[in-house]
Protein backbone atom coordinates (compact mmCIF):
# COMPACT_ATOMS: atom_id res chain seq x y z
CA UNK A 1 0.00 0.00 0.00
CA UNK A 2 1.26 3.42 -0.85
CA UNK A 3 0.78 5.99 1.90
CA UNK A 4 0.43 9.67 1.03
CA UNK A 5 0.33 12.68 3.33
CA UNK A 6 -1.25 15.76 1.79
CA UNK A 7 -0.71 19.02 3.70
CA UNK A 8 -1.15 17.29 7.04
CA UNK A 9 -1.15 19.51 10.11
CA UNK A 10 -1.74 18.28 13.63
CA UNK A 11 -2.03 20.47 16.69
CA UNK A 12 -2.24 19.19 20.24
CA UNK A 13 -4.68 20.71 22.76
CA UNK A 14 -6.49 22.87 20.23
CA UNK A 15 -8.14 25.96 21.79
CA UNK A 16 -6.10 25.80 24.97
CA UNK A 17 -3.18 27.91 26.16
CA UNK A 18 -1.00 24.78 26.03
CA UNK A 19 -1.70 24.23 22.31
CA UNK A 20 1.29 23.08 20.31
CA UNK A 21 1.93 22.13 16.72
CA UNK A 22 2.85 18.46 16.31
CA UNK A 23 2.94 18.44 12.53
CA UNK A 24 3.16 21.44 10.26
CA UNK A 25 1.92 21.05 6.67
CA UNK A 26 3.58 17.72 5.90
CA UNK A 27 3.25 16.32 2.38
CA UNK A 28 5.08 13.12 1.49
CA UNK A 29 4.68 9.69 -0.04
CA UNK A 30 5.80 6.44 1.55
CA UNK A 31 6.38 3.97 -1.25
CA UNK A 32 4.81 0.53 -1.34
CA UNK A 33 7.05 -2.41 -0.35
CA UNK A 34 9.98 -0.14 0.50
CA UNK A 35 11.89 0.27 3.76
CA UNK A 36 11.49 3.91 4.77
CA UNK A 37 13.37 5.41 7.72
CA UNK A 38 12.03 8.49 9.51
CA UNK A 39 14.61 10.42 11.49
CA UNK A 40 14.62 13.60 13.56
CA UNK A 41 15.45 14.78 17.05
CA UNK A 42 13.41 13.73 20.09
CA UNK A 43 10.12 15.64 20.02
CA UNK A 44 10.40 16.54 16.33
CA UNK A 45 7.07 14.91 15.46
CA UNK A 46 8.13 11.50 14.11
CA UNK A 47 5.81 9.55 16.41
CA UNK A 48 2.97 11.99 15.76
CA UNK A 49 3.47 11.47 12.03
CA UNK A 50 3.22 7.68 12.05
CA UNK A 51 0.22 7.62 14.43
CA UNK A 52 -1.77 9.23 11.61
CA UNK A 53 -1.26 6.25 9.34
CA UNK A 54 -3.55 3.98 11.38
CA UNK A 55 -5.73 6.85 12.61
CA UNK A 56 -4.62 6.70 16.24
CA UNK A 57 -4.36 10.42 15.66
CA UNK A 58 -6.37 12.35 13.14
CA UNK A 59 -5.08 15.40 11.31
CA UNK A 60 -6.28 18.85 12.33
CA UNK A 61 -6.22 19.59 8.62
CA UNK A 62 -5.04 17.77 5.52
CA UNK A 63 -5.52 14.23 4.25
CA UNK A 64 -3.72 10.92 4.59
CA UNK A 65 -4.26 8.30 1.91
CA UNK A 66 -3.54 4.73 2.94
CA UNK A 67 -4.08 2.67 -0.20
CA UNK A 68 -7.59 3.77 -1.18
CA UNK A 69 -8.56 4.66 2.37
CA UNK A 70 -8.80 8.36 3.19
CA UNK A 71 -8.19 9.80 6.67
CA UNK A 72 -9.18 13.38 7.47
CA UNK A 73 -10.20 15.30 10.58
CA UNK A 74 -13.75 14.09 9.87
CA UNK A 75 -12.89 10.38 9.86
CA UNK A 76 -15.22 8.41 12.11
CA UNK A 77 -13.75 6.41 14.98
CA UNK A 78 -15.85 3.43 13.97
CA UNK A 79 -14.90 0.95 11.25
CA UNK A 80 -11.19 1.51 11.60
CA UNK A 81 -10.48 -2.19 12.08
CA UNK A 82 -10.02 -2.96 8.39
CA UNK A 83 -7.46 -0.15 8.25
CA UNK A 84 -5.64 -1.17 11.43
CA UNK A 85 -5.52 -4.83 10.46
CA UNK A 86 -3.27 -3.92 7.59
CA UNK A 87 -0.99 -1.67 9.60
CA UNK A 88 1.06 -3.33 12.29
CA UNK A 89 2.59 -0.99 14.81
CA UNK A 90 5.51 -1.82 17.09
CA UNK A 91 5.71 0.90 19.71
CA UNK A 92 8.75 1.95 21.69
CA UNK A 93 9.32 -0.64 24.44
CA UNK A 94 6.42 -2.73 23.07
CA UNK A 95 6.80 -5.29 25.87
CA UNK A 96 4.57 -3.01 27.96
CA UNK A 97 1.56 -4.07 25.86
CA UNK A 98 1.72 -7.73 26.97
CA UNK A 99 -1.15 -8.75 29.24
CA UNK A 100 -2.31 -12.34 28.68
CA UNK A 101 -1.30 -15.23 30.93
CA UNK A 102 0.44 -17.12 28.15
CA UNK A 103 2.60 -16.02 25.26
CA UNK A 104 0.33 -17.88 22.86
CA UNK A 105 -2.81 -16.03 23.97
CA UNK A 106 -1.03 -12.72 23.74
CA UNK A 107 0.09 -13.33 20.18
CA UNK A 108 -3.44 -14.52 19.29
CA UNK A 109 -5.00 -11.33 20.70
CA UNK A 110 -4.46 -9.16 17.61
CA UNK A 111 -5.58 -11.68 14.98
CA UNK A 112 -8.72 -12.56 17.01
CA UNK A 113 -9.65 -8.88 17.35
CA UNK A 114 -9.37 -8.59 13.60
CA UNK A 115 -11.73 -11.52 13.07
CA UNK A 116 -9.47 -14.57 12.79
CA UNK A 117 -10.76 -17.87 14.16
CA UNK A 118 -9.05 -19.39 17.19
CA UNK A 119 -7.51 -22.02 14.94
CA UNK A 120 -6.08 -19.49 12.54
CA UNK A 121 -4.77 -17.36 15.40
CA UNK A 122 -3.11 -20.36 17.03
CA UNK A 123 -1.43 -21.26 13.78
CA UNK A 124 -0.25 -17.65 13.44
CA UNK A 125 1.17 -17.71 16.97
CA UNK A 126 3.14 -20.88 16.20
CA UNK A 127 4.55 -19.38 13.05
CA UNK A 128 5.39 -15.99 14.56
CA UNK A 129 7.15 -17.24 17.67
CA UNK A 130 9.65 -19.02 15.43
CA UNK A 131 9.96 -16.03 13.17
CA UNK A 132 11.09 -13.83 16.07
CA UNK A 133 13.70 -16.39 17.07
CA UNK A 134 12.08 -18.19 20.00
CA UNK A 135 11.01 -21.85 19.97
CA UNK A 136 7.51 -23.26 20.43
CA UNK A 137 8.08 -24.11 24.09
CA UNK A 138 7.71 -20.39 24.85
CA UNK A 139 4.05 -20.41 23.76
CA UNK A 140 2.88 -21.91 27.04
CA UNK A 141 4.97 -19.65 29.27
CA UNK A 142 3.74 -16.49 30.94
CA UNK A 143 5.12 -13.45 29.16
CA UNK A 144 5.97 -11.95 32.54
CA UNK A 145 8.44 -14.76 33.32
CA UNK A 146 10.57 -13.90 30.29
CA UNK A 147 13.63 -11.65 30.08
CA UNK A 148 13.25 -8.14 28.68
CA UNK A 149 14.67 -9.13 25.30
CA UNK A 150 12.36 -12.15 25.02
CA UNK A 151 9.33 -10.06 25.99
CA UNK A 152 10.24 -7.64 23.21
CA UNK A 153 10.25 -10.52 20.70
CA UNK A 154 6.88 -11.80 21.91
CA UNK A 155 5.38 -8.32 21.58
CA UNK A 156 6.71 -8.05 18.04
CA UNK A 157 5.29 -11.50 17.24
CA UNK A 158 1.91 -10.25 18.52
CA UNK A 159 1.98 -7.39 16.03
CA UNK A 160 3.15 -9.50 13.09
CA UNK A 161 0.53 -12.19 13.78
CA UNK A 162 -2.26 -10.21 12.09
CA UNK A 163 -0.19 -10.36 8.91
CA UNK A 164 -0.23 -6.59 8.26
CA UNK A 165 0.86 -5.27 4.86
CA UNK A 166 2.61 -2.29 6.41
CA UNK A 167 4.71 -2.45 9.56
CA UNK A 168 5.51 0.70 11.52
CA UNK A 169 8.40 0.49 13.97
CA UNK A 170 9.07 3.13 16.62
CA UNK A 171 12.66 2.52 17.74
CA UNK A 172 12.07 -1.23 18.01
CA UNK A 173 15.59 -2.01 19.22
CA UNK A 174 15.96 0.65 21.95
CA UNK A 175 17.64 -0.80 25.04
CA UNK A 176 18.54 -4.18 23.44
CA UNK A 177 22.07 -5.54 23.34
CA UNK A 178 23.91 -5.41 19.99
CA UNK A 179 23.19 -9.02 19.04
CA UNK A 180 19.48 -8.63 19.74
CA UNK A 181 19.45 -5.37 17.81
CA UNK A 182 21.08 -6.93 14.79
CA UNK A 183 18.71 -9.93 14.79
CA UNK A 184 15.59 -7.78 15.10
CA UNK A 185 16.68 -5.39 12.34
CA UNK A 186 17.42 -8.32 10.03
CA UNK A 187 14.02 -9.79 10.80
CA UNK A 188 12.31 -6.63 9.56
CA UNK A 189 14.57 -6.36 6.50
CA UNK A 190 13.64 -9.94 5.57
CA UNK A 191 9.94 -9.16 5.99
CA UNK A 192 10.38 -6.28 3.57
CA UNK A 193 12.14 -8.50 1.06
CA UNK A 194 9.10 -10.80 1.29
CA UNK A 195 6.83 -7.93 0.23
CA UNK A 196 5.96 -5.88 3.33
CA UNK A 197 6.21 -2.11 3.56
CA UNK A 198 8.41 -1.09 6.51
CA UNK A 199 8.44 2.32 8.19
CA UNK A 200 11.14 2.73 10.83
CA UNK A 201 11.54 5.59 13.30
CA UNK A 202 15.10 5.63 14.53
CA UNK A 203 17.97 7.65 15.97
CA UNK A 204 20.52 5.18 14.68
CA UNK A 205 21.94 6.52 11.41
CA UNK A 206 23.88 3.31 10.79
CA UNK A 207 20.59 1.40 10.76
CA UNK A 208 19.26 3.91 8.24
CA UNK A 209 22.34 3.46 6.05
CA UNK A 210 22.35 -0.32 6.32
CA UNK A 211 18.64 -1.13 6.03
CA UNK A 212 16.57 1.71 4.55
CA UNK A 213 15.73 2.30 0.88
CA UNK A 214 14.26 5.72 1.51
CA UNK A 215 14.48 8.24 4.31
CA UNK A 216 12.63 11.31 5.58
CA UNK A 217 13.95 13.94 7.99
CA UNK A 218 11.51 15.71 10.31
CA UNK A 219 12.33 18.82 12.29
CA UNK A 220 9.90 20.80 14.49
CA UNK A 221 6.93 19.11 12.85
CA UNK A 222 8.09 19.95 9.33
CA UNK A 223 9.39 17.62 6.67
CA UNK A 224 12.84 18.96 5.78
CA UNK A 225 14.17 16.26 3.44
CA UNK A 226 13.23 13.02 1.71
CA UNK A 227 15.11 10.74 -0.66
CA UNK A 228 17.62 7.94 -0.87
CA UNK A 229 19.81 7.75 2.25
CA UNK A 230 23.01 8.15 0.21
CA UNK A 231 21.66 11.42 -1.19
CA UNK A 232 20.08 12.80 1.98
CA UNK A 233 23.22 12.18 4.05
CA UNK A 234 25.09 14.25 1.48
CA UNK A 235 22.85 17.32 1.80
CA UNK A 236 25.27 19.78 3.32
CA UNK A 237 22.61 22.23 4.53
CA UNK A 238 21.00 19.59 6.79
CA UNK A 239 24.31 18.71 8.38
CA UNK A 240 25.33 22.32 8.81
CA UNK A 241 22.09 23.18 10.59
CA UNK A 242 22.45 20.12 12.82
CA UNK A 243 19.17 18.65 11.59
CA UNK A 244 20.85 15.35 10.81
CA UNK A 245 23.85 13.40 12.03
CA UNK A 246 25.95 11.11 9.87
CA UNK A 247 26.39 7.32 9.88
CA UNK A 248 29.82 6.33 11.24
CA UNK A 249 31.23 5.52 7.79
CA UNK A 250 30.28 8.92 6.38
CA UNK A 251 31.70 10.65 9.45
CA UNK A 252 34.96 8.71 9.10
CA UNK A 253 35.15 9.55 5.39
CA UNK A 254 34.61 13.20 6.16
CA UNK A 255 37.49 13.15 8.65
CA UNK A 256 39.73 11.28 6.19
CA UNK A 257 39.11 13.93 3.56
CA UNK A 258 40.90 16.53 5.67
CA UNK A 259 44.20 15.04 4.47
CA UNK A 260 44.69 13.60 1.01
CA UNK A 261 41.52 11.60 0.58
CA UNK A 262 38.71 12.97 -1.50
CA UNK A 263 35.10 11.77 -1.65
CA UNK A 264 32.71 13.14 -4.27
CA UNK A 265 29.94 11.73 -2.16
CA UNK A 266 30.35 10.48 1.40
CA UNK A 267 29.95 6.69 1.49
CA UNK A 268 27.39 5.68 4.13
CA UNK A 269 28.15 2.01 4.73
CA UNK A 270 31.35 0.25 5.75
CA UNK A 271 31.42 -1.75 2.52
CA UNK A 272 31.12 1.40 0.41
CA UNK A 273 33.73 3.18 2.51
CA UNK A 274 36.18 0.26 2.28
CA UNK A 275 35.78 0.14 -1.48
CA UNK A 276 36.44 3.86 -1.86
CA UNK A 277 39.53 3.74 0.37
CA UNK A 278 40.96 0.81 -1.58
CA UNK A 279 40.40 2.63 -4.85
CA UNK A 280 42.01 5.81 -3.60
CA UNK A 281 45.02 3.88 -2.31
CA UNK A 282 45.47 2.61 -5.85
CA UNK A 283 44.31 -0.92 -5.42
Amino acid at each position, binding site marked *: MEITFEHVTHSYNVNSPTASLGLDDVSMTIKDKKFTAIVGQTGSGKSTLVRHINA*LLKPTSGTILVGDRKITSETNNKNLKSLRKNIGMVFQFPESQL*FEDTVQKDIM*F*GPMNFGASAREAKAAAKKMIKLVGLDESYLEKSPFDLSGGQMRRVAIA*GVLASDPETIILDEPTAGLDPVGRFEIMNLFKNLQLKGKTIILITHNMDDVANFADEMAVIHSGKLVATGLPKDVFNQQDLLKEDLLSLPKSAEFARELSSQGFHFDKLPITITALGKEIKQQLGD
Partner: protein
Amino acid sequence: MDKIILGRYLPGDSLLYHLDPRGKFLLTFYFVGIVFLANNGASYAFLLAFVIFAVYLSKINFGFFIKGLRPVFWLILFTVALQLLFTPSNNPIWHWGIFTFSKDGLVIAGYIFMRFVLIIFISTLLTLTTTPIEISDSIESILKPLKKVNFPVTQVALMLSIALRFVPLLVDETTKIMDAQRARGVDFGEGGLIKRIKSFVPILIPLFVSSFSIAYDLAIAMESRGYKDGEGRSKYRVLKWEKRDTLTILFMLGLTVILLFLRSY
Protein backbone atom coordinates in the same frame (compact mmCIF):
# COMPACT_ATOMS: atom_id res chain seq x y z
CA MET B 1 -7.24 13.45 29.08
CA ASP B 2 -6.22 16.97 28.13
CA LYS B 3 -9.71 18.33 28.54
CA ILE B 4 -10.10 17.81 32.26
CA ILE B 5 -9.27 21.01 34.05
CA LEU B 6 -10.36 19.98 37.53
CA GLY B 7 -7.32 19.25 39.67
CA ARG B 8 -4.79 20.59 37.20
CA TYR B 9 -2.08 23.15 37.82
CA LEU B 10 -1.53 25.97 35.35
CA PRO B 11 1.84 27.72 35.63
CA GLY B 12 1.35 31.44 36.12
CA ASP B 13 2.31 34.46 38.13
CA SER B 14 -0.09 36.50 40.24
CA LEU B 15 -0.86 37.21 43.88
CA LEU B 16 -2.86 33.99 44.16
CA TYR B 17 0.18 31.97 43.05
CA HIS B 18 2.31 33.53 45.76
CA LEU B 19 -0.02 33.05 48.70
CA ASP B 20 0.99 30.38 51.18
CA PRO B 21 -0.57 27.11 50.05
CA ARG B 22 -1.64 26.26 53.61
CA GLY B 23 -3.68 29.46 53.75
CA LYS B 24 -5.15 28.85 50.31
CA PHE B 25 -5.95 25.24 51.16
CA LEU B 26 -7.74 26.07 54.41
CA LEU B 27 -9.54 29.12 53.00
CA THR B 28 -10.86 27.09 50.09
CA PHE B 29 -12.47 24.69 52.53
CA TYR B 30 -13.65 27.61 54.61
CA PHE B 31 -15.27 29.20 51.55
CA VAL B 32 -17.00 25.95 50.63
CA GLY B 33 -18.38 26.01 54.17
CA ILE B 34 -19.70 29.58 54.09
CA VAL B 35 -21.33 29.07 50.70
CA PHE B 36 -23.97 27.17 52.66
CA LEU B 37 -24.67 30.27 54.74
CA ALA B 38 -26.01 32.13 51.72
CA ASN B 39 -29.77 31.89 51.49
CA ASN B 40 -31.02 34.80 49.41
CA GLY B 41 -30.31 36.59 46.17
CA ALA B 42 -28.16 39.29 47.78
CA SER B 43 -25.86 36.86 49.62
CA TYR B 44 -25.38 34.68 46.54
CA ALA B 45 -24.71 37.74 44.40
CA PHE B 46 -22.15 38.89 46.95
CA LEU B 47 -20.32 35.54 46.96
CA LEU B 48 -20.39 35.43 43.17
CA ALA B 49 -18.89 38.91 43.06
CA PHE B 50 -16.14 37.73 45.40
CA VAL B 51 -15.36 34.66 43.28
CA ILE B 52 -15.24 36.75 40.11
CA PHE B 53 -12.90 39.14 41.90
CA ALA B 54 -10.65 36.22 42.93
CA VAL B 55 -10.63 34.88 39.38
CA TYR B 56 -9.69 38.36 38.19
CA LEU B 57 -6.83 38.48 40.72
CA SER B 58 -5.51 35.13 39.54
CA LYS B 59 -5.04 36.53 35.99
CA ILE B 60 -6.23 33.20 34.61
CA ASN B 61 -8.40 33.11 31.50
CA PHE B 62 -12.07 32.85 32.55
CA GLY B 63 -12.67 30.17 29.92
CA PHE B 64 -10.69 27.72 32.06
CA PHE B 65 -13.26 27.93 34.83
CA ILE B 66 -16.14 27.35 32.46
CA LYS B 67 -14.29 24.27 31.22
CA GLY B 68 -13.92 23.16 34.83
CA LEU B 69 -17.70 22.81 34.97
CA ARG B 70 -17.79 20.41 32.05
CA PRO B 71 -17.01 17.10 33.78
CA VAL B 72 -19.71 17.72 36.42
CA PHE B 73 -22.18 19.24 33.94
CA TRP B 74 -24.58 16.27 34.05
CA LEU B 75 -24.49 16.12 37.82
CA ILE B 76 -25.42 19.81 38.00
CA LEU B 77 -28.15 19.41 35.41
CA PHE B 78 -29.58 16.40 37.26
CA THR B 79 -29.62 18.12 40.64
CA VAL B 80 -31.10 21.31 39.25
CA ALA B 81 -33.80 19.34 37.41
CA LEU B 82 -34.59 17.44 40.58
CA GLN B 83 -35.10 20.69 42.47
CA LEU B 84 -37.15 22.16 39.66
CA LEU B 85 -39.53 19.23 39.50
CA PHE B 86 -39.74 17.99 43.05
CA THR B 87 -39.77 21.08 45.28
CA PRO B 88 -43.15 20.97 47.05
CA SER B 89 -45.11 24.21 46.84
CA ASN B 90 -48.54 25.60 47.73
CA ASN B 91 -48.99 27.53 44.52
CA PRO B 92 -47.52 25.45 41.70
CA ILE B 93 -47.41 26.85 38.19
CA TRP B 94 -47.71 23.37 36.76
CA HIS B 95 -48.48 20.06 38.36
CA TRP B 96 -48.55 16.53 36.97
CA GLY B 97 -48.51 13.38 39.11
CA ILE B 98 -45.48 13.51 41.36
CA PHE B 99 -43.98 16.45 39.43
CA THR B 100 -44.41 20.00 40.64
CA PHE B 101 -43.07 23.09 38.95
CA SER B 102 -43.25 26.30 40.96
CA LYS B 103 -41.63 29.65 41.53
CA ASP B 104 -40.15 28.33 44.82
CA GLY B 105 -38.66 25.38 42.94
CA LEU B 106 -37.19 27.71 40.39
CA VAL B 107 -35.52 29.83 43.07
CA ILE B 108 -34.13 26.83 44.97
CA ALA B 109 -32.86 25.32 41.74
CA GLY B 110 -31.15 28.64 41.01
CA TYR B 111 -29.48 28.62 44.44
CA ILE B 112 -28.29 25.02 44.03
CA PHE B 113 -26.86 25.92 40.65
CA MET B 114 -25.06 28.90 42.21
CA ARG B 115 -23.61 26.67 44.94
CA PHE B 116 -22.17 24.32 42.37
CA VAL B 117 -20.68 27.14 40.35
CA LEU B 118 -19.16 28.83 43.40
CA ILE B 119 -17.66 25.67 44.84
CA ILE B 120 -16.28 24.45 41.54
CA PHE B 121 -14.84 27.85 40.65
CA ILE B 122 -13.11 28.29 43.98
CA SER B 123 -11.66 24.78 44.09
CA THR B 124 -10.55 25.06 40.45
CA LEU B 125 -8.88 28.29 41.48
CA LEU B 126 -6.98 26.47 44.23
CA THR B 127 -5.68 23.69 41.99
CA LEU B 128 -4.90 25.96 39.04
CA THR B 129 -2.70 28.20 41.17
CA THR B 130 -1.20 25.61 43.54
CA THR B 131 1.15 22.84 42.48
CA PRO B 132 0.24 19.34 43.68
CA ILE B 133 3.43 19.29 45.74
CA GLU B 134 2.38 22.51 47.51
CA ILE B 135 -0.96 20.92 48.31
CA SER B 136 0.80 17.87 49.68
CA ASP B 137 3.10 20.14 51.72
CA SER B 138 0.04 21.89 53.12
CA ILE B 139 -1.57 18.61 54.09
CA GLU B 140 1.64 17.55 55.82
CA SER B 141 1.80 20.82 57.70
CA ILE B 142 -1.86 20.71 58.69
CA LEU B 143 -1.60 17.08 59.87
CA LYS B 144 1.56 17.74 61.88
CA PRO B 145 -0.21 17.68 65.27
CA LEU B 146 -1.10 14.03 64.58
CA LYS B 147 2.58 13.13 65.03
CA LYS B 148 1.89 13.20 68.75
CA VAL B 149 -0.38 10.19 68.39
CA ASN B 150 2.32 8.38 66.35
CA PHE B 151 0.68 8.97 63.01
CA PRO B 152 3.49 8.75 60.38
CA VAL B 153 2.86 12.22 58.95
CA THR B 154 6.20 12.66 57.12
CA GLN B 155 6.05 9.21 55.56
CA VAL B 156 2.47 9.74 54.43
CA ALA B 157 3.43 13.13 52.98
CA LEU B 158 6.36 11.62 51.06
CA MET B 159 4.08 8.87 49.82
CA LEU B 160 1.55 11.44 48.68
CA SER B 161 4.15 13.57 46.91
CA ILE B 162 5.62 10.55 45.13
CA ALA B 163 2.16 9.42 44.09
CA LEU B 164 1.47 12.90 42.68
CA ARG B 165 4.83 12.87 40.93
CA PHE B 166 3.98 9.64 39.12
CA VAL B 167 0.45 10.55 38.01
CA PRO B 168 1.58 12.25 34.76
CA LEU B 169 3.92 9.35 34.03
CA LEU B 170 1.11 6.83 34.44
CA VAL B 171 -1.20 8.97 32.30
CA ASP B 172 1.42 8.87 29.51
CA GLU B 173 1.83 5.15 30.02
CA THR B 174 -1.94 4.62 29.81
CA THR B 175 -2.16 6.60 26.57
CA LYS B 176 0.67 4.57 25.11
CA ILE B 177 -0.79 1.21 26.12
CA MET B 178 -4.22 2.23 24.82
CA ASP B 179 -2.66 3.19 21.49
CA ALA B 180 -0.79 -0.10 21.33
CA GLN B 181 -3.96 -2.12 21.99
CA ARG B 182 -6.03 -0.03 19.57
CA ALA B 183 -3.39 -0.78 16.95
CA ARG B 184 -3.97 -4.47 17.78
CA GLY B 185 -7.67 -4.08 17.02
CA VAL B 186 -9.25 -3.18 20.38
CA ASP B 187 -12.19 -0.84 20.03
CA PHE B 188 -12.87 0.86 23.33
CA GLY B 189 -16.21 2.41 22.49
CA GLU B 190 -17.86 -0.63 20.92
CA GLY B 191 -20.30 -3.30 21.99
CA GLY B 192 -22.33 -3.84 25.14
CA LEU B 193 -21.35 -3.02 28.70
CA ILE B 194 -19.64 -6.37 29.37
CA LYS B 195 -17.65 -6.12 26.17
CA ARG B 196 -16.60 -2.60 27.03
CA ILE B 197 -15.46 -3.55 30.52
CA LYS B 198 -13.58 -6.50 29.06
CA SER B 199 -11.80 -4.23 26.62
CA PHE B 200 -10.12 -2.52 29.56
CA VAL B 201 -8.36 -5.66 30.78
CA PRO B 202 -5.61 -5.28 28.13
CA ILE B 203 -4.95 -1.81 29.57
CA LEU B 204 -5.28 -2.48 33.27
CA ILE B 205 -2.93 -5.46 33.41
CA PRO B 206 -0.03 -3.76 31.60
CA LEU B 207 -0.66 -0.69 33.73
CA PHE B 208 -0.41 -2.73 36.93
CA VAL B 209 2.71 -4.44 35.68
CA SER B 210 4.39 -1.18 34.84
CA SER B 211 3.29 0.44 38.12
CA PHE B 212 4.89 -2.41 40.03
CA SER B 213 8.05 -2.18 38.02
CA ILE B 214 8.21 1.59 38.62
CA ALA B 215 7.61 1.02 42.34
CA TYR B 216 10.35 -1.61 42.51
CA ASP B 217 12.88 0.51 40.63
CA LEU B 218 12.00 3.57 42.66
CA ALA B 219 12.38 1.72 45.95
CA ILE B 220 15.84 0.52 44.93
CA ALA B 221 16.81 4.02 43.77
CA MET B 222 15.56 5.59 47.01
CA GLU B 223 17.42 3.09 49.15
CA SER B 224 20.61 3.61 47.17
CA ARG B 225 20.27 7.32 47.89
CA GLY B 226 20.14 6.63 51.61
CA TYR B 227 16.42 6.62 52.35
CA LYS B 228 15.93 4.52 55.46
CA ASP B 229 12.61 4.86 57.22
CA GLY B 230 11.84 8.53 57.08
CA GLU B 231 13.33 9.29 60.49
CA GLY B 232 16.14 11.80 60.90
CA ARG B 233 15.43 13.44 57.56
CA SER B 234 15.70 17.18 57.11
CA LYS B 235 13.44 19.11 54.81
CA TYR B 236 14.36 21.18 51.76
CA ARG B 237 10.93 22.52 50.94
CA VAL B 238 9.80 25.13 53.43
CA LEU B 239 6.62 27.11 53.50
CA LYS B 240 6.83 30.73 54.54
CA TRP B 241 3.86 32.54 56.07
CA GLU B 242 3.89 36.20 55.06
CA LYS B 243 1.92 39.27 56.04
CA ARG B 244 -0.20 39.02 52.90
CA ASP B 245 -1.34 35.55 54.02
CA THR B 246 -2.55 36.93 57.34
CA LEU B 247 -4.26 39.77 55.48
CA THR B 248 -6.03 37.29 53.23
CA ILE B 249 -7.38 35.47 56.27
CA LEU B 250 -8.62 38.77 57.75
CA PHE B 251 -10.18 39.67 54.41
CA MET B 252 -12.07 36.38 54.41
CA LEU B 253 -13.31 37.00 57.95
CA GLY B 254 -14.56 40.44 56.89
CA LEU B 255 -16.30 38.76 53.99
CA THR B 256 -18.02 36.39 56.38
CA VAL B 257 -19.30 39.27 58.49
CA ILE B 258 -20.81 40.99 55.43
CA LEU B 259 -22.33 37.69 54.37
CA LEU B 260 -23.96 37.27 57.77
CA PHE B 261 -25.54 40.71 57.35
CA LEU B 262 -26.81 39.97 53.86
CA ARG B 263 -28.41 36.61 54.54
CA SER B 264 -32.00 36.51 55.73
CA TYR B 265 -33.02 34.93 59.01
